[in-house]
């Protein structure tokens, strides 16, 4: 039995090493997110500020194609607010009865429009690099929320001897360090409605809180349900153990 546990530990250590090796660059520092841990939940205020950062900064380059305006209900917005946010966007609809495509204000059922018509247009506008969609970003990179936060705050001057092209920036955490994304955040890039000072650090953690939700909108429900399921199973298994003992008692 002991040997088996050791063997299992070896396998898991191996898997661990396996995930770690992909990040041969600097590992992003682990942060304590409101949504980490068994009881972790999203921070509504941070997500609302993060939405603002996405809309005013990131949306210039990055799409968020899996998210519809109606989903913003989860951030604590009411129906009117969602309609108002949607209406600020123009979406292409159609064809109408004449067979023409037409533009109209966004509705809650619409998804966030993408900044570029297609990847080619996106690449053309960004010196050949396509800004990836952000909907699933937090689940799509090793390090998740920690990584994206580190990326957004990890721009530094290149070390001596590293030559940058005009269109490149040096980032401590981006794989290979040279990224086509210029530092997107700068002090007071947005003006928060709730008076929170818009430091780079604050904006980065807010937009990551928002993106953590876009990647895994069912997380809160999942964890709440999980706690109940586990509690039930523990009791249920305990009862089964007692029954097993009782049934087998006559044998030994």
């Amino acid at each position: 039995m002991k040997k088996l546990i050791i063997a299992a530990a070896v396998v898991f250590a191996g898997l661990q090493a396996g995930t770690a090796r992909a990040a041969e660059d600097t590992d992003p520092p682990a942060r304590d997110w409101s949504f980490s841990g068994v009881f972790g939940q999203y921070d509504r205020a941070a997500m609302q500020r993060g939405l603002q950062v996405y809309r005013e900064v990131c949306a210039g380059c990055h799409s968020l194609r899996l998210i519809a305006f109606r989903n913003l209900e989860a951030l604590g917005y009411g129906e009117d607010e969602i309609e108002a946010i949607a209406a600020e966007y123009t979406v292409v609809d159609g064809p109408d009865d004449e067979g023409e495509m037409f533009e109209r204000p966004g509705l809650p059922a619409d998804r966030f429009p993408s900044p570029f018509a297609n990847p080619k247009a996106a690449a053309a506008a960004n010196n050949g690099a396509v800004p990836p969609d952000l909907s699933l970003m937090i689940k799509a990179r090793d390090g998740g929320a920690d990584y994206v936060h580190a990326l957004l705050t990890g721009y530094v001057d290149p070390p001596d001897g590293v030559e940058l092209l005009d269109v490149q920036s040096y980032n401590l955490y981006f794989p290979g360090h040279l990224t086509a994304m210029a530092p997107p955040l700068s002090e007071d890039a947005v003006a928060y409605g709730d008076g929170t000072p818009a430091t780079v650090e604050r904006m980065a953690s807010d937009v990551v809180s928002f993106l953590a939700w876009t990647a895994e909108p069912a997380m809160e429900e999942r964890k709440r349900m999980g706690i109940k399921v586990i509690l039930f199973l523990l009791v249920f298994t305990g009862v089964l153990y007692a029954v097993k003992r009782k049934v087998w008692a006559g044998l030994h």
Partner: protein
Amino acid sequence: MSEFKPTNPVIRWIEHRLPIFSFIDHAVGSGYPTPRNLNYWWNYGSLAGIALVILIITGIVLAMQYTPHADYAFDSVERIMRDVNYGWLLRYIHMNGASFFFIVVYIHLFRGLYYGSYKEPRELLWMIGVTLLLLMMATAFTGYVLPWGQLSYWAARVITNMFTAFPFGETIVTWLWGGYTVGNPTLNRFYAFHYLLPFVIVGVVFMHIWALHRFGSSNPVGIEADGPQDKIPFHPYYTVKDLFGLGVYLTLFAALVFFAPNMLGETINYVEADPLVTPAHIVPEWYFLPYYAILRSVTFDIWFLSAKLIGVILMFGSTLILFLVPWLDRSPVRSARFRPWYKWFFWIWVFDVAVLTWVGANLPVPPYLYIGQVASVWYFFHFLVILPLLSIFEPTKPLPSSIGEPVLKGGGASAAGAASKPMEKA
């Protein structure tokens, strides 16, 4: 064991025309005599069965919302995660259910190796088990392609590409793909197989259990029962023990599904498949890592055989060799408890597989490459050399005279006395 005599008139009416109730009773009821000394390692067979049922049920429901098309598959999975009621739950159960299925079946298989369950007269039972493992691999591989993420796509490409190592390889691969690269026809056929194979597995599981019931379970001391005092009815003893095991299993499973559902997966599969962007690390799911390590540890051609071909042959060989184990291990003693040398070599082999798993997760560069090569050689050395040699040279320990002896420390008379009580109840 007692005859099956139902008292309920409805059951009697049905039983007379279709003896299904006695069939169930003989399969998993009081009519199936089981060795009294089975330990918890004997729980994994029934756990595998339940894992299979969980996968089939969640799989069918997922299929009701999934779209098998290269352009829509990724988004349809995200729709299941976001817009389908409890779709996230179904998908996480199915995804992690596959991992747990493999954990359970690997333990089940290791149990068989440790206790020598594959020996006469259970060789065919064992071989049906290896067949199940192969079918599971095919099912898991085709299933992993369906969400059409980056690794889905590239795993399909890398693995199918292995066939180019064989003569007429290009033709075979084009035929497998249904085109000149992995594309929509590939996804469609993988989906067809992924839906089909689990039901083939169900059929083969029935044969597995049929073969099992021919001689009944083996047991930790590995000697056959020599009388009714060595056996107890499956129900209620093992039904309740299996249920308790199931409770533990479900608790661990729920912890993974609800609190770390993506832990065993690769992040990059949340990026949609892109034929133009090769991921820096193409790794299979964890349960394929040992085979992957063996495949990649061959870096040299031998005579007219290319490194690639040898790698592919060894990779398949690592599983196929299990078919031969009943004949490679000729030791008359089944259980490792009485085989002092084999016991050590068994654990070294388990460690070797763990090392291969670890190597498989890393790039095939030094030192991983060399460690992988040593571990691959040992893997085969264990089966092809150690097992046959042990059969000849190992001094085995004396076997107990009966199953009851080590269980009921008193032995003889008291064993019969203690055993008679539950027998009456049955």
